[in-house]
């Protein structure tokens, strides 16, 4: 069977001692940084990204994937123990997880999260293995109009799922797209927006944008009127859930996994949506509704499974189409490009070891997470006590070296400084940085396919919406239009506000 031989190939690749080592290193570093309060998966991955550049492509991407789910998992630990979720996807976990911790059941909450995540991760790995090949086949048939429309859909979805104002999210995407165009025009060789700087001929350094907007900007923000937030770290007594706990966990884990696997594929941050959807679902169908918000284990097990499954399946559009579903996937695509790999359907065909190796390494990584996290929880708890002011100089030092290591050029450090300031200003104006990063990665792609499609159609823009000739493109654009209309509907707009307020 194809699936089995593919997975065998993947396991053989991921199981090579070198790759196992880098997977482990990624998971360990990801957890280590992700557990630190206030650092979510995106910031963590952006910061650790440059470390992987010195490796060959396969171990580099395996390590990067490990960093991502390590950070995701570490964030859950922080959410449960000190109620400071690093990123919105683990915000839901903190609702009931922190309550459990306050009742002395932190261990059980952590165990529920670990078991749920591992199960979800296993299932999601298979989902990727099953869905990726047919999707790749479809993607190989995509022409420029289909790609253009797909990118548009991805961008629209990320607008819909961004926090706060829809208009600001759109503006951030457009700004990101434009920043992505800086550099030499691929068709004519004309320099664009390079300000006559040679360093800008290849475009703005992607790592400088990511580390500036997510790392430096966040630090500047935290330095505003520093509050003394000595976190109260709860004690972890015993990890073992009771038999009653297990019974209550099974359903939520199964439903969370299913929800997460499905929603994670959506462009624009499926993991966040998945954990919210799972929490809402569990609360609705539970016979113990009153316990939710006061330490119900279902409220930890469900969203954590959904969150992890979603994090995993968000690799599908990235691996098969070269389209990032969330900012972390945008970072992965950036890493691929720097490694000299063209993201897209050809990766699976031309580099099956890399493709299946990454998929298989996810399962290995999830296994390592469980092994790392439960017995070593004492270490993570101690890490939570590291005060912020001893932490951020290290972040700045790593970011500096990381950005410098990409091209060994001083200009990139000026860029990270500038993007730190710009990112801070935008944060102050309540603009989310995530859509900007997606736009930045997708800008060149969007333009290239637009221009090719227009040459193909001899300047007729209806090529994108002609149902009889280009059904896929037309469908994708129709979906984008519907999604845009929906977020602007007054009812939905209000509901959106409620959802995103709840998580703050």
């Amino acid at each position, binding site marked *: 069977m194809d699936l089995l031989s593919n997975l065998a190939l993947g396991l053989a690749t991921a199981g090579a001692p070198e790759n196992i080592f880098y997977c482990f290193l990624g998971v360990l570093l990801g957890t280590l940084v992700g557990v630190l309060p206030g650092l979510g998966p995106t910031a963590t991955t952006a910061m650790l990204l440059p470390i992987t550049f010195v490796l060959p492509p396969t171990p580099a991407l395996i390590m990067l994937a490990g960093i991502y789910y390590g950070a995701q998992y570490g964030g859950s630990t922080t959410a449960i123990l000190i109620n400071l979720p690093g990123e919105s996807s683990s915000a839901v976990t903190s609702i009931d997880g922190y309550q459990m911790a306050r009742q002395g059941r932190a261990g059980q909450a952590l165990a529920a999260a670990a078991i749920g995540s591992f199960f979800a991760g296993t299932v999601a790995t298979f989902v990727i293995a099953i869905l990726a090949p047919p999707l790749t086949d479809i993607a190989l048939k995509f022409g420029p109009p289909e790609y253009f429309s797909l990118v548009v859909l991805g961008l629209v979805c990320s607008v819909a799922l961004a926090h706060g104002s829809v208009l600001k999210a759109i503006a951030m995407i457009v700004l990101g797209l434009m920043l992505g165009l800086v550099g030499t025009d691929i068709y004519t060789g004309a320099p*664009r927006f390079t300000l006559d700087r040679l360093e800008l001929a290849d475009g703005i350094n992607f790592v400088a944008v990511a580390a500036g907007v997510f790392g*430096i900007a966040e630090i500047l923000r935290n330095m505003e009127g520093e509050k003394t937030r000595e976190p109260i770290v709860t004690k972890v007594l015993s990890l073992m859930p009771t038999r009653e706990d297990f019974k209550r966990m099974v359903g939520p884990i199964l439903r969370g996994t299913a929800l997460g696997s499905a929603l994670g594929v959506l462009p624009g941050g499926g993991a966040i949506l998945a954990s919210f959807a799972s929490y809402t679902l569990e609360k609705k169908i539970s016979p113990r509704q009153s316990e939710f918000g006061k330490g119900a284990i279902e409220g930890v097990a469900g969203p954590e499974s959904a969150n992890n499954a979603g994090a995993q399946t968000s690799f599908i559009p990235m691996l098969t189409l070269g389209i990032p579903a969330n900012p972390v996937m945008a970072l992965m695509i950036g890493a691929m490009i720097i490694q000299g790999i063209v993201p897209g359907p050809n990766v699976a065909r031309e580099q099956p070891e890399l493709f299946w190796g990454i998929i298989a390494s996810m399962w290995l990584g999830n296994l390592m997470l469980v092994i790392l996290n439960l017995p070593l929880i004492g270490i993570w708890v101690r890490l939570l006590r590291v005060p912020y002011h001893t932490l951020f100089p290290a972040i700045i030092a790593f970011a500096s070296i990381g950005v410098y290591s990409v091209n060994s050029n001083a200009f990139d450090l000026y860029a990270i*400084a500038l993007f730190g300031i710009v990112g801070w200003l935008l944060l102050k104006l309540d603009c989310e940085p995530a859509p900007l990063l997606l736009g930045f990665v997708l800008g060149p792609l969007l333009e290239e396919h637009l221009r090719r499609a227009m040459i193909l159609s001899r300047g007729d823009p209806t090529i994108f919406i002609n149902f009889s000739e280009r059904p896929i493109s037309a469908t994708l654009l129709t979906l984008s239009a519907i999604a845009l209309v929906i977020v602007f509907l007054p009812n939905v707009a209000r509901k959106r506000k409620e959802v995103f307020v709840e998580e703050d």
Partner: protein
Amino acid sequence: MTANRKDLVCGLVFIVIGLLFALGTRDLDMGTATRMGPGYFPIVLAGLLILVGAIIAVRALGKPAGESFGEVPWRAFFLIIPALVFFGFAVRQVGLMPAVFIVALASSFSSTKMTVPLALTLSAVLACFCALVFVVGLGLPIQLFGPWVRFW
């Protein structure tokens, strides 16, 4: 006339950025819809950004002022931003360890809670750690000590 300050500023910022980009396309060939030149897509995007910025700004008018912009972390700005610029400018000349030490030392004082002994220890530890991880471990081609500080 009142206006939501944050949204108004936000809209104006986007308009200004859009205008700057539009200005940057002056020398670029627009081409035609069939054969788009290098300037076509950017000018469309710049126009879109100006439009969205204008909508954000106009919608801010007549709304209550909303929360204020808050304080600006000047101290952090004056320490962290120059530290980054310094690193880029000097890492090749002074080498990795001194550069990391100075970056960490300078930026650590943007926190009011930082003490001198802690900052010195932290920066020294970071310099050694980065040297071990990035140069010894990962083999980054950066000298540990550059020509400016090498007296031997």
